């Protein structure tokens, strides 16, 4: 089977045409867009950057200027226009089957509940403005839409979107969670968490990796979207994992001080805000037991990649409803963590392809290499997923 998503019990059914429409959007994104992007990268190094340097007597290495230069030609306009259209077509292909089956899916979410885990919603929770201001990723209705009693639509839509969006998530779309497990196993081999919290869990796709890795642990997962959480709960029950989902903001949770051994998040950071992210790290510091570990996964910061990748990364802010994306990538994360109370020696900035741990020199060399990459560099970040790790004293 060519890289199919696992059809667990909570999945939305699809007719031949609906499935094909979604599969083709995935192909457009993973195969066609990738090819287009390789072409524009080639044009940049072969023509645009040398011509600029010749004309201005200085290298083209500021991502804002790179954007200006790249958008002078039609190729990049078509590539980025195509990128946006593919994103829109993804939701166009995903929403109708969910809409059609909604009552049935809601019934199914209730039938699947085997009381392995729990679900606790908080209708009084004030939804953070950074999540509701625009529909992140252009998903119509966003993460927090709640259309009716027992609504699960946002989760049903998002679950299939992860697989279309990410070519390397695997059938369980849990690659990011597995990457965090693999990192922790290598850098903290003695870590045996008894109580875990996954922040910004959406449908719990990464959360399941922790459930599998530490089956004995008490596993909690929070998000602010009620329909996402109802779906996540049903999905976990269908997959046979005990997870305690609750509707909470990661900025201020209801968990007690020093009550957790491990806190995780996956691509949550860039969906928050300049104020919220430092507050979330402070909250992690409050929640961790002495010796407890927090690990937050996201893409590398701008100063950890070459100027052309900076341009590609920052496109997301402009074209994919990611208001905080670029700003987040300029934060000094080490400082955010030490300001939150983690001692400098206990803050690690690391990457899935480096795994330097406390060997700062090894990580610095890898980042230096990443920053200096130029023509001929392979697509994708050589650093892999970026981690912000903090160990509570």
């Amino acid at each position, binding site marked *: 089977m060519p890289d199919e998503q696992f059809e667990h019990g909570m999945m939305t059914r699809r007719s*031949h*045409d609906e499935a*094909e*429409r979604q599969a*083709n*959007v995935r192909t*457009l994104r993973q195969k066609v867009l990738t090819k287009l992007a390789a072409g524009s990268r080639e044009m940049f190094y072969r023509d645009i950057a040398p011509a600029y340097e010749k004309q201005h007597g200085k290298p083209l290495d500021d991502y804002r200027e790179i954007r200006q230069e790249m*958008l002078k030609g039609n190729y990049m*306009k*078509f590539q*980025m*226009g*195509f990128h*946006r*259209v*593919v994103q*829109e*077509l993804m*939701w*166009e*292909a995903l*929403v109708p089957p*969910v*809409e059609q089956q*909604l*009552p049935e899916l*809601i019934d199914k979410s209730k039938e699947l509940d085997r009381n392995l885990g729990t679900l606790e919603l908080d209708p009084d929770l004030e939804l953070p403005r950074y999540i509701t*201001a*625009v*529909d992140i990723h*252009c*998903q*119509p*209705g*966003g993460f927090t*839409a709640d*259309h*009716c*009693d*027992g*609504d699960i*639509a946002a989760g049903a839509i998002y679950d299939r979107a992860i697989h279309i969006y990410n070519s390397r998530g695997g059938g369980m779309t849990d690659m990011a969670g597995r990457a965090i497990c693999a990192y922790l196993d290598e850098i903290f081999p003695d870590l045996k968490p008894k109580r875990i919290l996954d922040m910004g869990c959406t449908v719990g796709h990464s959360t399941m990796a922790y459930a599998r890795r530490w089956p004995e642990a008490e596993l909690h997962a929070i998000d602010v979207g009620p329909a996402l959480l109802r779906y996540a709960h049903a999905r976990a029950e269908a997959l046979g994992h005990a997870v305690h989902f609750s509707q909470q903001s990661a900025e201020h949770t209801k968990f007690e001080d020093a009550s957790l051994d491990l806190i995780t998040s996956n691509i949550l950071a860039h969906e928050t805000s300049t104020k919220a992210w430092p507050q979330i790290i402070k909250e992690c510091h409050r929640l961790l037991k002495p010796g407890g570990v927090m690990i937050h996964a996201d893409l590398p910061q701008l100063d950890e990649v070459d100027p052309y990748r900076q341009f590609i990364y920052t496109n997301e802010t*402009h*074209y994919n*409803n990611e208001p905080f994306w670029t700003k987040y990538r300029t934060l000094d994360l080490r400082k955010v963590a030490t300001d939150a109370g983690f001692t400098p020696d206990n803050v690690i900035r690391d990457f899935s392809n480096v795994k330097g741990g406390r060997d700062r020199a090894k990580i610095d060399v890898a980042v230096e290499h990443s920053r200096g990459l130029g023509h001929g560099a392979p697509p994708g970040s050589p650093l892999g997923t970026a981690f912000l790790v903090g160990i509570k004293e």
Partner: protein
Amino acid sequence: MNADSKVTLPRVAKGPRPMMFEDEANDILLSMNVSLLNELTVTRQRLDALERVLEKKGLVDQAEVNGFTPDDAAADERDALRTEISERVMYLLLHQAERAERELSDKDAEDEV
């Protein structure tokens, strides 16, 4: 709202819709083209599914479909279909060409008068 009454999910995302081209007509055309491409693929795959189902039932032989050679009458009909589809996709440019031609002949007519 109760789940039993029909829920309509939103189709448009909240937030600005950036346009890539100075003339946003190009963005709209691009969206139509890619969407059309998507639908064409869906249709082509449906045809493929149909052929495979029919073959399984012994009603169609894929090799026979692949090796199909139309007779003269069928070849003519297929050629007409090919042209028709191409012209349908190219309709806007063809309209412009037709208009230009008409203006030319109108002008000729005026000159003659």
